[in-house]
C-alpha cells in the first residue's frame, strides 16, 4: 500500500517534526519547513501531529495511489487535481486505488504538504524520520523523491473506496498564519546596529533572493551595519535566526540550518511567524516588526491552542465516518 512517484517534482521529501537531541554533534533538526501545514494535514486524517508527511515544492510530483487512502493537502496551493478533478486544500478525502494526484500551477505559497492516514513509511535515523540530505539518512533513503519511487504507507488503510469522496468539513487555517509583518525578537547583537540600520530593519522590505533554500533565505535589503564591528565566535543558532553578513546583507536560517554560526544575530523570527515565512518564495518581500518575549510566547500559545481545537474537532468528525477506528 502506498503511492508511486510517476513524475518527480523539484524537491519532494519526507518530513516529520524534526530530529532533536543531536545538535551538539552538528546535526540539524531539519523538520517540515511549515510545521503548521504538517500538523494540519496530519490532524485532517487523524494521525499524530508529527507523523511523516510529504513536503512538495513547485514543480510538484505526480503521484499514483496503488491502494485506497484517506489523504489531505495543506500549505501552498499548487492547484491540485485528482484524476483531473480539482481538489481543495485542508479537506480530508477518500481516494480509490489508481487515482492520480497532480499539481497544475503555483497559485500561492511555496510548500504543499500531503498526508495519508497512517503516515508515510520512512527510514528512522537518530529518533526521527525526517530526511537529512547531507548524511543521506532518514526519510526516503536519505534523499529527495525521484521518478518511480514507491512510497509506502506506514499503516495499511483498511477501508474500501469505490470513488473519490471529499469529507464534508474543512480546516480553517487562516488564523494559523498571522497576516502582515513577520514578528522578530531582537537578537544579542541588535543593539549594536547603527541608528539607520535599526530604522531599516523595521521599515524597509527584505526581498528573498533566488539562492534561498531549506537551509536559509538570503535576503536583499538596504545595507545594514553595526555601529561598532563585532567579531563573534560560533554559537548556537536556530530556525528563524536573522544574521548580518559581512556584505551588509542578511541571511535568515530555516529548517535545515547549521547548528552553530558566528555572524551577528540581529533577531529571531517568533515561532508563530515561521509557518508564514516557510510559505514565501524567492522574490517575495518580508517586513519585520519587533515584538517582545511575552507577546511572542502568547501568540505561539494561541496558535498551538487553535491547532489543538482543530484536532479535537477533526477527531470527532472522523470517528463518525471511520467508526471502527
Amino acid at each position, binding site marked *: 500500500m502506498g503511492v508511486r512517484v510517476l513524475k518527480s517534482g523539484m524537491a519532494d521529501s519526507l518530513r516529520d517534526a524534526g530530529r*532533536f*537531541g*543531536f*545538535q*551538539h*554533534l*552538528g*546535526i540539524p*533538526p531539519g523538520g517540515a519547513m511549515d510545521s503548521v501545514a504538517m500538523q494540519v494535514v496530519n490532524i485532517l486524517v487523524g494521525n499524530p501531529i508529527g507523523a511523516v508527511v510529504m513536503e512538495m515544492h513547485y514543480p510538484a510530483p505526480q503521484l499514483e495511489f496503488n491502494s485506497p487512502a484517506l489523504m489531505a493537502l495543506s500549505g501552498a496551493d499548487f492547484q491540485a487535481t485528482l484524476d483531473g478533478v480539482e481538489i481543495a486544500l485542508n479537506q480530508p478525502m477518500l481516494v480509490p486505488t489508481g487515482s492520480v494526484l497532480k499539481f497544475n500551477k503555483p497559485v500561492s505559497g511555496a510548500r504543499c504538504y500531503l498526508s495519508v492516514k497512517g503516515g508515510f513509511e520512512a527510514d528512522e*535515523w*537518530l529518533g526521527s524520520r525526517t530526511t*537529512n540530505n*547531507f*548524511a*543521506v*539518512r532518514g526519510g526516503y533513503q536519505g534523499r529527495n523523491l525521484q521518478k518511480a519511487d514507491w512510497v509506502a504507507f506506514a499503516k495499511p488503510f483498511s477501508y474500501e473506496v469505490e470513488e473519490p469522496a471529499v469529507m464534508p468539513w474543512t480546516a480553517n487555517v487562516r488564523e494559523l498564519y498571522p497576516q502582515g509583518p513577520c514578528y522578530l*525578537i531582537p*537578537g*544579542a547583537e541588535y543593539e549594536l546596529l547603527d541608528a539607520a540600520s535599526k530604522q531599516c530593519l523595521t521599515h524597509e522590505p527584505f526581498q528573498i533572493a533566488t539562492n534561498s533554500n531549506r537551509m536559509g533565505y538570503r535576503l536583499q535589503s538596504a545595507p545594514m551595519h553595526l555601529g561598532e564591528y*563585532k*567579531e*563573534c*565566535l*560560533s*554559537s*548556537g*543558532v*536556530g*530556525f*528563524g*535566526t536573522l544574521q548580518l553578513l559581512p556584505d551588509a546583507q542578511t541571511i535568515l536560517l530555516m529548517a535545515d540550518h*547549521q*547548528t*552553530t*554560526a558566528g555572524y551577528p*544575530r540581529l533577531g*529571531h*523570527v*517568533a*515561532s508563530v511567524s515561521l509557518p508564514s515565512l516557510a510559505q514565501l518564495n524567492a522574490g517575495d518581500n518580508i517586513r519585520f516588526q519587533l515584538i517582545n*518575549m*511575552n507577546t*511572542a*510566547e502568547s501568540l*505561539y*500559545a494561541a496558535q*498551538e491552542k487553535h491547532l489543538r481545537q482543530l484536532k479535537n474537532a477533526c477527531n470527532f468528525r472522523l470517528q463518525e465516518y471511520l467508526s471502527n477506528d
Partner: protein
Amino acid sequence: MGLKKNVESKIAAFSSDNLGLTCSVEKPFPYRIYPIGDQAITLDFGNLIKDEINAQVMALFYWLKEENLHGIKDIIPAYSTISLVYDAPMIRKWAGNGSVYQYMEQYLTNALQQLDLLALPSSRELRIPVCYHQSLAPDLMELCQEKQMDLDEFVSIHTAIPYRVYMIGFLPGFAYMGSLDERIMAPRKQTPRTHVAAGSVGIAGVQTGIYPFASPGGWQLIGQTPMTLFRANDDQPSLFQPGDLVQFESISIDQFYQLKNKAS
C-alpha cells in the same frame, strides 16, 4: 519553587564521586543570558576561546543532560556559550505565572550556581593520523613560504600539542579545535573553496578542524586524515565529542592510502 529542591537532590547524586571525575570547575565566570528566539536561550560567558570557560560550558552541558528536564529538546555547547532549545508549550505547564523564558532563565541561573560543586568527566584522548603531503594539503606550501618555515617545522608545530574539541557545529561531526601555536596561525581563505575533500584538516585563526564530509569550506587546508569521522549508522555517529582532546600524528602518503583502503 520545586525546581531548587530538585536541583539539589540531583547535585547530591552527581557529586557522589563515582563517575571517574578528574578536574573540578571553579566559580562561574561572568555571564549573561539572552533569548535566541521564543523557544531557545543562550548562556554566554563572553566572546572568548579559553579552556577554563569551555570546561565550564561542558560542565553545564553534562549537568543539564543528567538533569534531563522534560521539554528541553537540544543542548548546544559552543566555545563560550551554551544554548538550550525548548518546547515552550510543554515548559509552560510548570512555568507558573511568569513567561516561559523567565522560567528558563531562572533554571539556567540555578544550574550555574551549582557549578562549583561540579566536576567534569575526564577528557577522552584521541590520536588522529594526518598526512601532510602536498597532494592532500593544497594550502600548506604557500603557508610555509609566507611564514618562511620549512614543511617539517610546520608539521612538528601542528602535531606538538593535543587540541581541545571546543565544540561541534557547521557540519555533522565538524569539530572546532584549538588553540594553535601562533607561529602557524592563518586567516580564512579570502574566497572559500566550493569543494573541500572529506577528511581535510584545516586551520583558521586560532582554530584547527577536520571536514567530516566533502563540502564547501573557507579554512586553509594543511593535510588530510584517512579516518572516517562520521558514521551515520552508529548510535554515536560523531567520532569527536565536545570536550575531547585530539593529538594529531603525522603519517606518510603510503600510510595514508593504506589506512584509507582499510577504512573503506
